[in-house]
């Protein structure tokens, strides 16, 4: 399986889905596309024997261990979301979506997967930028599936804010290009924007300019990644999108932005040899975690709670990158994976909740456990997991990140972080306990079960539980190599 081959599958699936298929067949193609993508992604990653780098398209696409982790993440969450959506959006009945909307949804879903894969696989910074912008464009329509007022509002904000942010990131890309182009003869021009090339030549780059570039990229990709104070679009978009899309947005898209930021961080570190980018990442990371606290405490909409928790977790990832070292990078990458799994699980749960309770208001959802013990227990465990409770996987990666902080002797930062995490835990528990427990007071009757949707939930909770105790060997090896790549070999 080649890199280009992998990219072809979702791309062609997207366009095949544009043809006027009947509902059943469209659903089949939709699922088949997702599964095929996943299968080929897995083959690609695990079949590559962890060769350091595989280039294609003239070096513009690259599969190294870092991108492999994210390919894995995209296709895995992608297929889960795909299966869930097959049950969720393609359901039939009085409230079913019209065929046109479904087609639009299916098309953009696969396109979205495609753009994300390009983002993480691109070695060319320009291409990466284009792909990230394309993810925004592709997902804006996914956010607005039903053309409701609030969905349009969310999609508009998402579109505008992310486009502005990404425009600023382009500024950074240009500055990087400038810094290399002004130092090296133009002959090698085609390689100038290639990350692998830039990292090799990091010594000749002008540190001052690279720092400026990093600032722009931090603001730009930080917006896409949902770091505070650039996160404002995130709760709107994530809360308005349908559950499976929110899962992808929150679990994967943010992670893709984070890997782009990480690549710039590696470059900046190599070029400047200073802790400039580390400090900025820690600063914005901490701020993101802090900003999430009040919004999780005082929130009326459960999907927004989850969205703010994504802000928090992306902050933690940034802090992990900032702490550096093997523990820090490993922890942050593991955190990306764990967060993606847990958060997507929660968004799937939110799909269930919306389906069962017909409301997004926390106040109106009570006694899930009474009404539906299966959903209730999975939801509550997932809430605990996302708030950092062992034995679930997020605890493990948070543990690694904070270990890195203590090893880096950043005691104050760690203390603040611990305090904020405890507050977030309190907020989550407050909301989660209210929703899960208590007597179930009437309302809509239990709707019929959907095997696909329930299956995804069960798989999700088992995976995050197992990963709290056990990191599969290949995954560990992959992340370890990725973190070594990201400068984790230096303590």
């Amino acid at each position, binding site marked *: 399986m080649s890199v280009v081959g992998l990219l072809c599958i979702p791309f062609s699936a997207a366009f095949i889905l544009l043809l006027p298929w009947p509902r059943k067949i469209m659903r089949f193609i939709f699922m088949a596309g997702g599964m095929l993508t996943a299968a080929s992604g897995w083959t690609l990653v695990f079949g590559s024997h962890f060769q350091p780098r595989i280039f294609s398209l003239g070096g513009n696409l690259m599969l190294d261990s870092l991108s492999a982790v994210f390919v894995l993440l995209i296709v895995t969450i992608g297929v889960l979301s795909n299966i869930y959506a097959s049950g969720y959006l393609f359901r039939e009945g009085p409230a079913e979506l019209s065929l046109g909307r479904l087609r639009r949804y299916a098309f953009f879903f696969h396109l979205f997967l495609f753009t994300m894969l390009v983002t993480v696989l691109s070695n060319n910074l320009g291409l990466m930028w284009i792909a990230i912008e394309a993810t925004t464009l592709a997902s804006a329509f996914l956010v607005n599936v039903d053309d409701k007022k609030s969905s349009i509002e969310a999609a508009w904000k998402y579109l505008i804010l992310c486009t502005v942010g990404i425009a*600023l990131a382009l500024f950074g890309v240009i500055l990087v290009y400038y810094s290399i182009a002004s130092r090296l003869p133009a002959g090698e021009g085609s390689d100038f924007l290639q990350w692998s090339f830039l990292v090799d030549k990091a010594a000749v780059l002008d540190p001052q300019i690279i720092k400026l570039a990093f600032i722009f990229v931090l603001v730009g990709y930080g917006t896409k990644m949902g770091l505070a104070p650039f996160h404002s679009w995130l709760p709107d978009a994530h809360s308005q999108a349908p559950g499976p899309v929110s899962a992808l947005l929150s679990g994967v898209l943010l992670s893709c932005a984070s890997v782009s930021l990480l690549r710039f961080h590696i470059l900046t570190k190599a070029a400047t040899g200073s802790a400039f980018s580390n400090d900025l990442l820690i600063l914005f990371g901490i701020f993101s975690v802090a900003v999430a606290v009040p919004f999780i405490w005082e929130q009326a909409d459960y999907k927004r709670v989850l969205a703010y928790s994504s802000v928090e977790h992306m902050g933690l990832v940034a802090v992990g990158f900032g702490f550096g070292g093997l523990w820090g990078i490993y922890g942050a990458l593991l955190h990306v994976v764990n967060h993606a799994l847990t958060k997507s699980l929660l968004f799937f749960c939110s799909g269930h909740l919306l389906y069962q309770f017909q409301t997004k208001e926390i106040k109106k959802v009570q006694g899930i456990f009474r009404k539906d013990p299966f959903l209730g227990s999975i939801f509550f465990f997932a809430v605990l997991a996302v708030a950092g409770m062992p034995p679930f996987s997020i605890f493990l990666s948070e543990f690694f990140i904070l270990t890195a902080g203590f090893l880096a002797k950043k005691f104050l930062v760690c203390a603040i972080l611990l305090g904020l995490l405890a507050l977030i835990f309190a907020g989550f528990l407050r909301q989660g306990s209210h929703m*899960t427990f208590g007597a179930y007071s009437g309302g809509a009757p239990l709707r019929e079960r959907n095997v696909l949707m329930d299956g995804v939930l069960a798989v999700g909770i088992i995976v995050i539980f197992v990963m709290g105790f056990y990191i599969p060997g290949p995954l560990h090896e992959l992340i370890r190599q990725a973190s070594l790549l990201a400068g984790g070999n230096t303590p």
Partner: protein
Amino acid sequence: MEFLLFGQIVFYLAGAILPFILKDGGVINRWTHISAIAGGLIGVVYSLAVLVTGQGFSFAAPGLPFVGNLSLVVDPLSAFFIFVISFLSVPATIFAIRYIQEFQDKKRIAFLGFFYNLFILAMILVVCVHNAFYFLVFWEIMSLASYFLVVFEHEKIQARRAGIIYLVMTHIGTAFIAASFWLLAGHAGSFAFADFHLQAATLPPALKNAIFWTVLIGFGTKAGIIPLHIWLPEAHPQAPSHVSALMSGVMIKTAVYALIRFFLSFVGEVPLWWGVVILSLAIISAVLGILYALMERDLKRLLAFSSIENIGIILLGFGMTLIFVATDKPAYASFALIATLFHVLNHASFKGLLFLGAGAVLSKTHTGNAEELGGLIKRMPWTAVCFLTGAVAISALPPLNGFVSKWMIFCSLLSAHQSQELAVRFFTPILAALLGFAGALAATCFVKAFGICFLGEPRSEQARHAVEVSPSMQWAMGLLAGSCLGFALLAPWIVSILQKVSGTLIEADTPIPNFTFNGLFITLADFGQISPLVFGWMLSGAILILFAALAIFANRKVMLAPSWACGLPGLTARMQYTATGYSKPIRRIFSFLYQPTRQVELEDEGHEILRTAQRFESKTTHVFDEWIYRPLAKCMLFVSKKAKLMQTGHIQLYLSYIFITLIVLLVYWSRL
């Protein structure tokens, strides 16, 4: 002996999984608990073996990358705590079978069985795991499992609220614990306890002090020392009674275990002031804990507050251990440690007993409110005997076990009178006197608890129709009541075993000459000795002689008559003293602490004399709740409300955030 440990783990796991395999509620109930009993019995066996032989064992499984092996080590200290946990879990589980039969709803029993087994298993693993990461994991599983047991009756708002407070507090505590592990690991270079111990001597003082505070706050939260106790009186009463017994009896002791492990094994030399800090917190917990317990009308809340008091007593012993370690008096240190451990064991037995007793009352009357109880001694005689035994033991009255360990703690406190430090010499007798004061208040508290609930006339219909609980529940309580007596009579032997535990933690070069535990007596050189057995004999001998003498010489005629009511007829149950009334003198005396408020409402029909109704309301204030936690929570909510103004929905505002941040960063860059 590894296989016994595995056996125990397997039984608990089986007990946790069975509820999901079996079909019928009754069957689930039986087997899940039988499994837990089997696990408990195995635990008792191997932990006793380790304690008696002094030979521990260990086991290591490969663990997660970077964090090190999952190593389980059963050394004497762990074995002691495993013993306490397993020992209490057996009667608690026996009690549970019939106790929860009323919840025949299959889902609920499965829920309970799953988390109950998980809870005990987590406690066992917490006290024997020797890797910081896994310690945290098991610690949190323990908290989580007990959280679910607390919210077992989640339809009640109080249960949910208690659960939130509990889990949040314990999570904050865990954050501190984790911080202390990180500090240690940063120094030792690994998360293995063995490495912590090896590197202990080279720990820099500043780091050591940081570790001290984080450890103290972290585990102090779990132990429930004041002012970190607020979760305890909320959470313990909400859980089913046999779970409350375990939570109060052993779960909060895991924090004591960790404190011992940390301060005697991970940090090397101990500064004197650590001991002083612990003693101060301990005495505050002991006295305030019991003062709050006195104000409670709810039986289980009262018991929960009394647990705070007992943690204070345990920590007094441990504080003295640290002081003696710091002043290099290993013999006294190990005496104090033995006293501490002994009280841990004793508290487990009598607090477990009392919670089971409260559970028995609750299961038959469906209320724990003392104001609605009364007269149960005639309706539930065996429960009454057991509860009374527990009450006597917890009030530290001779000849039961509470007295023996408390005597030892008194001795530890007083034997500091030859210390070089003036402050230590001055304050330890005062602490000892305050400990005695706490004991006297505990006696008052349990006179009230037993007297109001079990004696006199029933105050409600439920209490009037109460009947004795089923035999298995009686057995469970009887077992613990027997242990209250047994531990006292066997005290010298138990203490000699505990000496082995302390021997592994406090290195005394010579065998300790200052005290001996042989035969009948526990002796401390400067102090003299006690023998609970002799006391038991003396007291029961005197009683028997008196009884015989009266039987022979005195008039045996008895005339039954109504109680004296100042000559007025018709004494009713409502005229009895109430629990609130009973604690009134204390409430008046310590009004500065309770800030009591009272409200009297009179209703009349125009004339003052023609009163139709009179309502009286009296409330006391929990100063820590009112002055610290409530304002904190309110402040947090207020800040959250204000902070949400960040996100008004105006896209221009959001854009300007990006914009302003960018400008600030650019200015920062240009200043670099």
